[in-house]
């Protein structure tokens, strides 16, 4: 254990005083010589020549002895193992186990619909939209433990077992896509409202995600509700549980968001004023057509 080893050294070594503390590496001359400042380099180097004029030949070529040899960038083959990683979407995992734990510890209210801002307010997930993270995905660890009916809205589900675990207890699951601008509004809603911007209108998903979000098997928000009902029956038969009566659900369980809507109860285009506790709605027709389209 590193702490215990460090404390063992402390007990054996000299008393730590103001003069005994080690200087950080960046202040030593050795490090500063190895990492010179850019302005220093420019001041020292010459103003002429290929280096200063950005005219160096490509690596792997000696201009005197070239004679038909290729530069290294053309001789070395390309091995694109991580191709497409800059466009790939990331989803942070949340397991059924953590969900159940949060409900048991009363950090989440299962009687209200569970949304992305609700889960971000627990401060357990730090979603960064600029790192190509698009929300949360549900993981099936703890499917046996899960036992509360909830109305859950998540961004991705990879396994059928997770969907089955929620629906067996009488819950409702939808997968929903949020684009990065609306995601940054959802993660920290208070900060977003303090900025004073109107609520954005959620974009349609990208082309390689449309198939996922129109699929009733993944309970996409763009799928046909009749086919979703069919799929619920099919899953119940496959995993061997009985679907509870839909009439027993409370009205909150049927709450669903419009494909352009981000927050429950708030429409896109509205401006929320926290200081005066008011909401401003646009009256101009062109704004209304834009936000309601």
């Amino acid at each position: 254990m590193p702490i215990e080893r460090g404390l063992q050294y402390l007990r054996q070594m000299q008393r730590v005083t103001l003069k005994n503390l080690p200087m950080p590496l960046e202040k030593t001359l050795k490090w500063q010589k190895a990492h010179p400042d850019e302005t220093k380099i420019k001041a020292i180097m010459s103003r002429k020549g290929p280096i200063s004029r950005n005219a160096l030949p490509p690596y792997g070529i000696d201009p005197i002895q070239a004679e038909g040899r290729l530069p290294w960038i053309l001789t070395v083959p390309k091995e694109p193992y991580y191709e497409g990683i800059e466009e790939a979407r990331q989803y942070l995992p949340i397991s059924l186990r953590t969900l159940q734990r949060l409900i048991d510890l009363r950090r989440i209210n299962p009687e209200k619909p569970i949304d992305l801002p609700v889960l971000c307010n627990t401060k357990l997930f730090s979603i960064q939209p600029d790192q190509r993270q698009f929300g949360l995905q549900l993981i099936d660890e703890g499917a046996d433990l899960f036992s509360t009916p909830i109305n859950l809205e998540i961004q991705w589900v990879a396994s059928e077992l997770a969907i089955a675990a929620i629906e067996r207890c009488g819950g409702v699951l939808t997968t929903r896509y949020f684009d990065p601008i609306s995601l940054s509004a959802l993660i920290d809603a208070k900060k977003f409202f303090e900025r004073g911007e109107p609520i954005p209108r959620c974009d349609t998903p990208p082309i390689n995600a449309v198939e996922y979000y129109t699929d009733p098997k993944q309970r996409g928000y763009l799928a046909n509700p009749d086919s979703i009902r069919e799929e619920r029956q099919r899953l119940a038969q496959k995993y061997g549980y009985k679907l509870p009566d839909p009439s027993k659900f409370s009205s909150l369980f049927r709450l669903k968001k419009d494909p352009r809507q981000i927050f429950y109860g708030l429409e896109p285009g509205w401006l929320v004023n926290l200081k005066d506790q008011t909401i401003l709605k646009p009256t101009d027709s062109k704004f209304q057509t834009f936000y309601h389209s």
Partner: protein
Amino acid sequence: MLRSLSLVKILRNCSLQSIRYFESSTQSSSFSPESSANPIPQQLPLIVSRQLEYPHTRYPPLQAWLETLGQKRDDKLGIVDLHPSIWQTSPRLDILYENIEWQKTYKKIDWAYTPPHHEYPSMRGKPWPQKGTGRARHKSKFDPQWKGGYKVHGPKGPTSFFYVLPKEKRVEGLCTALTVKLHQNDVHFVDSLDLPTHQPTYLQELAEDRFWGPSVLFVDDTDIMPHNIMFASAKTEGFTLMPVYGLNVYSILKHTTLVLTIRALNKIEKKLLHALHSCDNPKDQPAPPDEP
């Protein structure tokens, strides 16, 4: 003279669980300094448990002796529990360095000022004609190469080196300073700072007998200290008194030993644990508990 009743009151603040021996013997005990005739009624040191907030998942609470200043003989009164998040953190000396550097430089103001060339007397006038004198050619008397001339890119005006170290680093610095002192046997816990006499020799001899280093830092709950210790520490070089709100990494490392009262320990642990376990922004943070 040790006031045994006050000790009971103090220990009640830290919710105690087993103190039966002590309570039964308070009436009979009455201490006096350098007393071998009246020994402490308890034969063994007792374990007085303190309830710790936010218990650590991995480490059990540490334990340290509880001593007195009321008598010269080093009889231990009991054992105190310490929270491992504060008293058993990794000894990050680089964080200590950063804290000390911050404490030194945030107050620093560099008053150096060299006036630029437009604040010098008039530049018109050659000192001597261009040709004929045999001396070097010059245009003005205040050029940089002259003695008493202006400096081109010199220091301009008071520059401040103020910056605020992030709160997590300051809290971590305090915790590491306390662990370093504890694991090098330089921390002593004391029931209160009540002394029997105001003579400075009493305290000095007490510190010498117990090998408490040339400089000692006494930390108490409030900034109003008993009269005896005030007088004694004012007359000795190296002994300082400090309330809890003045505790800082520089002072902890400057003094060789650190003497904390139980009240101070409670307050310090409460404040540091509250700071370690809150995840709000500084704007959203609720007021800390128990302002001084």
